C-alpha cells in the first residue's frame, strides 16, 4: 500500500474531509480490498446495524418522446417518430396496480422531455394517481422539471411547488450524468447545464421535496471530471441537506450513438462507489445499481460502501434499450442481501424503514407477479399488441 493511500486512510480514520486531490488519487488506485475496507468502515460508521435496505418500487416510463437527444441514450424517440408513445391512463393504472399487488409504494414516474406534455398534464396525472392509489410519487428529473417550467412560463419554484401540491413526493436525481459542462456538451449538448441541474435540486430541497443524486460515469469523462461531479453534489448537500442518497451507475454504450466507448468494468464500478462513499461524507445512503452491474457485482458493492439495494423496478426499459439485460425480483434480492450477511429490510423512498412482510407473503406476491408477467409475455408473443415500455433508472 502506498504512503499516499495510507495518508488518505489516516484522514478517513480521523474523520477529516477528503479533498479533490485525494479523490483523484483514489480513482487511480488499484488495491480493491484496501479501498473496499475503507469505504466499508465509513458505511458501518453511518449505518451501524447489519441491515441492507431495499424499496419495492416500479419504473413508469410514461413517454419515450424526447427532443434532447442525448448521445448516451437508446430509449428516446424524437418527436414525430412512429415509435414514440405516451402511456394512457389505462396503461398507467395497470402498471401502478401491479406494483400495489406486490406490496410496493414507490412509483418512479419518469420519461423523455416531451414537448407535447405541459404542466397541466403532470398536475392532472399526479392528482389522478394520488387519488386512486396510496403510492409515493418519485417523479420526473431535473431536465424534465426545467423544461416544464420553461414551456409553462413559470419560475422553477412555482412549477415545482405546483407539482408538489399535486402529489410529487420526491424527485429522482437522474440526468446528473457528469456535472461538468465539458462532458455534457459532448454527450448531451441540448440537455440542461450542470448549474441548471443543481438549481432544480436546490429549489426542490428548499420547498421540501427531497431528492437523490446520481452519477453516470464511464462515457467520455476524465477522473478529474468525476471528482468535479462529486464536489458539486457535496457542496449542495452542505448547503441544503436535501439528498437522500447517491447512486453511481455506469454508462451502457452498446446501442447508443457512443457505442464505440468501452463498457466500464465492475472493477471501475466498485472503485467508484468506494471513492464516492469516502468523498461524500454528508450523504447517508448509497444505492447499488444492479440494473447496470448485474447481481454479482451489485452484491459485492455491499462491501464497498453501499447500504441499499435499490428498487425492484419491475420493468426496465432505458438501460435495457442500451444493451443491459439484468432483471431481479424481490426474493432474489433478499437472497443476495442475506447471503452477504445482512438483514434485508424494506424502506420507503425517504429511507425510513418499513415493516417487512413474512417471507411466505413475499414469495406468494412475487409468484403471482411472475405468473402474470409470463401470461402477458405469452399474449404478446401470440400477437396481442405490446404495451409500451417502462423504465428509466433511478
Amino acid at each position, binding site marked *: *500500500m*502506498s*504512503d*499516499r*493511500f*495510507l*495518508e488518505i*486512510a*489516516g484522514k478517513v*480514520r*480521523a474523520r477529516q474531509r477528503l479533498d479533490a486531490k485525494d479523490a483523484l488519487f483514489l480513482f487511480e*488506485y*488499484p*488495491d*480493491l*480490498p*484496501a479501498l*473496499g*475496507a*475503507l469505504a*466499508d*468502515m465509513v458505511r458501518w460508521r453511518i449505518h451501524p446495524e447489519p441491515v441492507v435496505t431495499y424499496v419495492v418500487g416500479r419504473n413508469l416510463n410514461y413517454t419515450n418522446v424526447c427532443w434532447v437527444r442525448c448521445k448516451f441514450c437508446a430509449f428516446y424517440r424524437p418527436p414525430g417518430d412512429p415509435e414514440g408513445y405516451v402511456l394512457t391512463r389505462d396503461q398507467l393504472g395497470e402498471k401502478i396496480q401491479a406494483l400495489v399487488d406486490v406490496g410496493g409504494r414507490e412509483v418512479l414516474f419518469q420519461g423523455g422531455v416531451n414537448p407535447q406534455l405541459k404542466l397541466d398534464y403532470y398536475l392532472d396525472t399526479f392528482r389522478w394517481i394520488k387519488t386512486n392509489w396510496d403510492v409515493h410519487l418519485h417523479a420526473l428529473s431535473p431536465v424534465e422539471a426545467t423544461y416544464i417550467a420553461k414551456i409553462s412560463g413559470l419560475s422553477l419554484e412555482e412549477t415545482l411547488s405546483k407539482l408538489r401540491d399535486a402529489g410529487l413526493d420526491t424527485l429522482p436525481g437522474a440526468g446528473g450524468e457528469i456535472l461538468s459542462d465539458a462532458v455534457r456538451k459532448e454527450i448531451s449538448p441540448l440537455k440542461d447545464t450542470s448549474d441548471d441541474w443543481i438549481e432544480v435540486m436546490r429549489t426542490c430541497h428548499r420547498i421540501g421535496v427531497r431528492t437523490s443524486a446520481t452519477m453516470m460515469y464511464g462515457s467520455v469523462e476524465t477522473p478529474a471530471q468525476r471528482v468535479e461531479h462529486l464536489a458539486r453534489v457535496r457542496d449542495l448537500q452542505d448547503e441544503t441537506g436535501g439528498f437522500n442518497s447517491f447512486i453511481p451507475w455506469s454508462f451502457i454504450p452498446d446501442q447508443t450513438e457512443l457505442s464505440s466507448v*468501452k463498457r466500464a*468494468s*465492475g*472493477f*471501475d464500478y*466498485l472503485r467508484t462507489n468506494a471513492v464516492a462513499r469516502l468523498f461524500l461524507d454528508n450523504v447517508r445512503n448509497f444505492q447499488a445499481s444492479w440494473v447496470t*452491474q*448485474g*447481481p*454479482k*457485482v*451489485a*452484491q*459485492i458493492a*455491499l*462491501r464497498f460502501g453501499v447500504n441499499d439495494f435499490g428498487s425492484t423496478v419491475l420493468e426496465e426499459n432505458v438501460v435495457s434499450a442500451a444493451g443491459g*439485460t439484468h432483471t431481479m425480483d424481490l426474493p*432474489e434480492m433478499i*437472497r*443476495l442481501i442475506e*447471503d*452477504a*450477511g445482512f438483514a434485508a429490510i424494506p424502506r420507503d423512498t425517504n429511507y425510513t424503514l418499513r415493516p417487512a412482510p413474512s417471507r411466505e407473503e413475499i414469495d406468494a406476491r412475487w409468484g403471482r407477479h411472475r405468473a402474470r408477467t409470463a401470461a402477458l409475455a405469452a399474449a404478446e408473443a401470440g400477437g396481442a399488441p405490446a404495451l409500451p415500455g417502462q423504465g428509466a433508472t433511478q
Partner: protein
Amino acid sequence: MAPTPHSVPSVFEAALDRAGLSSIYRKVLDGTRLTGDDGLKLAECQDVNALGYMANLVRERKSGNLCYFVRNQHINYTNICNKDCSFCAFYVRAKDPAGYVLWPEDVRKRVLEQMEEPVTEIHMVAGINPRLPYEYYLDIVRAVKETRPAVTVKAFTMIELAEIARVARKPREEVFAELKAAGLGSLPGGGAEVLSDRVHREIFPLKLTPAEWLDWARAAHLAGLRSNATMLYGHIETAAERIEHLLKLRELQDETKGFLTFIPLAFHPENTEMAQLPATSGLLDLKQIAISRLMLDNFEHVKSFWIMVTPPVSQLTLWYGADDIDGTILREEITHAAGARTPQALTRNELVDLVKEAGREPVERDPLYRIIWREAAHDGAREGAVA
C-alpha cells in the same frame, strides 16, 4: 510521507480482530500453514475485503504483480456420457439424437479452423462414451499434434483417463506412456467436483470416488504428467466439505508437487437436474478464491475461470488471491449448456486490458506456465501493487 498510525492495515487488523481471525492473520504473515479449523473460520467471515487482504499478501508473495493468461482453444470431443451427473447440462445418453463424437478428422478440422489464432494450448475434455476405443484417444491427440505441432495438448480429466485405461485393457502406467508418446502434454483439473464421499454419493455416484480421483491424480503426476485441480462449488456442498477438498489436494500436492494451478468452478444450475438452485453469488466467488489461496500454500497459482464467474468478477479476483485468469478459450460449450451468459471467447486484447485496468501486469503463459509474452517496456510495478 511516512505511513500514518491510522493506516489501512490497522483497518484490516480491526476487521480481522472482530471476525476472530487475528491468529490466522499472524500465520499468514509468518507463512505458517493454516489448519482445517482455520479454513472453517475463514469460510464464516463475511468481510470479503479482510479475506482479500490476507489472500493478496500470499498472492503477491508468490506472483508479485503478475497475472497470467493463456491463448487456448477448447475442443469437447463428445457429449455422450454414461455418468449421469446431476450438475451437468452438457451430456446426453448414448442413443440421444443430439449426441455427437468428433472423430480424429473432425478434431483436425477444429484445429485448422483456429490456425490464425496463436494458441499455445488445446484443451480437450468430454463425456465418458464407452463405445470409443483406446485408439480413438491416441488418434485425437495425434490429430492435434500433427496439425499443430507447437501446441501443448492439455487433455483428459481423471475420469476420462480411467475410462481410457479401461478400454485399453492395459496398466495405467503404459497408457500414460502411450498418451504422452502420442503428444499429450498435460492434464486439466476438471472432474474433481467436491472431494467428499457424501457429495459424491448424492450428485455424481457413477464417477470416480474422491479416493479414486486422488489416486489417479497421484499416478499421473508420478508418470510425469502435470495437472490442474478444480472444485465445483455452489450446489449441495457445505463449507466444511469445501475445506476438506482443499486439504486433500494440499496433502497430495505435498507428496507429488504435480499440480500447477487450482481453479474453483462456480456451479451453473440452469438446465441441470439441480436447476432449482440459485447461481453462486459474487461474494461467494470472491471468498472462494481468497480461501483457496490462503489454504493451498503449496500451489503456485490460483485461477479464476471467467467463463463461470463472468469476466467482471474474474477481474476483481486479481486482488482477492487469483494470479491467473485462464484464457481466450475459443468456444466453450460445457458451462454454456448450463445457461452461462458469459461470452464463449475473449480476445487477447480484451484479456490484457482487463488485467491492466486492475493494475496488474499481464503475462501470457503456456499450459505449463512458461512465459510466452511479457510487455517489453512495461512501466514497473504499479503503485500499491506490492505492499
